[in-house]
């Protein structure tokens, strides 16, 4: 049996990390140019891009960690661009985003895979999830395929933010 104070502390820690469900905006259909525009819109100190899908188990698994990082560094100027590559019509992506507490605009990929993949990185094979970190100048600092943990994502975002003063 956990002491009451510890139980409360664990509950509070959990509630800081996991935002309550919200009515997430429906993902905006976006071709590669629109995704690039969202990434390169001025004003961010760093940009975190994640390509995911509701059917992708590792994507769903890393989502809370991803959003934890997104929220933690939002005030430091981190912009988070989520791009769903779901292909079945329906409200699945929006429902998932709502459950995850995403209260900002996100995107859903349109158009051919190859152009989309190469517009983000020619080194990306197309495997999901895929995550990209850009610095304030829009330079791709980090890119990886597959699920990452909170400490790793945090470290990579911090690297990009640290480059702000070093154009």
């Amino acid at each position, binding site marked *: 049996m956990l002491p009451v104070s510890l139980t409360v502390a664990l509950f509070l820690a959990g509630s800081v990390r996991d935002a309550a469900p919200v009515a997430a905006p429906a993902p905006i259909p976006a071709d590669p140019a629109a995704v690039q525009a969202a990434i390169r819109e001025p004003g961010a100190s760093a940009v975190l891009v994640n390509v995911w899908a509701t*059917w992708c*188990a590792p994507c769903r698994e890393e989502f809370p960690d991803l959003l934890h990082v997104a929220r933690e560094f939002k005030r430091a100027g981190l912009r988070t661009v989520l791009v769903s590559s779901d292909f079945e019509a329906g409200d699945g992506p929006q429902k998932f985003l709502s459950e995850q507490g995403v209260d900002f605009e996100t995107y859903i990929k349109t158009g*051919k895979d190859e152009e989309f993949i190469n517009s983000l990185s020619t080194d990306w094979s*197309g*495997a*999901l999830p895929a995550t990209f970190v850009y610095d304030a100048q829009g330079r791709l600092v980090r890119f990886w395929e597959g699920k990452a943990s909170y400490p790793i994502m945090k470290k990579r975002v911090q690297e990009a933010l640290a480059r702000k003063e070093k154009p």
Partner: protein
Amino acid sequence: MTRKLPFVLPLLLAAPLAYAGPLAIGSAIPSADVKMKNVDGKELSLTDVKGSAGTLVVFTCNHCPFAKGWESRIVDLGNSYQAKGIGVVAVNANDPAVAAEDGYDGMVARAKEKGFAFPYVVDASSGVAKAFGATRTPEVFLFDKAGKLVYHGAVDDNMQDPAKVENAYLKDALEAVAGGKPVPVAETKSIGCSIKFRS
């Protein structure tokens, strides 16, 4: 300089484990003699599968929506080009501990249900997929008659709707290889599920 060695050495030792990118066009079939269990219970290597006109290796699995979306096309192409002298094999490198549907029994059922006329084998260590530099399902590698990689990538450019395919990359490559001609496009990409490598 020498003081740095203890730090450099572990990095060098770790290097072969790092992802080195996909197999380059022109490469020979890697891990060609690794035996893998087929859905008929027999052990097969890629050398055993080699065809007189070429060899098609498809990394796929049971659970992935993209693998399922392309599955019928993979089976149609595999079955018809196997009859034209291309050795064909589907390889499942996924750890069934991650997606239970990718277990051996599931593979046996899927091959039967979909009418695979070619082997569907278990890459039991995921080592064959790693040797190919494969990262996703489905991902195809086509070798010519001489055993050199001539095509790597996607089945075609529209997983969702076969009627809207504009570029049938794999079919075109198979047709070229079966006819002893150069393939029109050597490398393409598509979105897919990451391979669930065994750790």
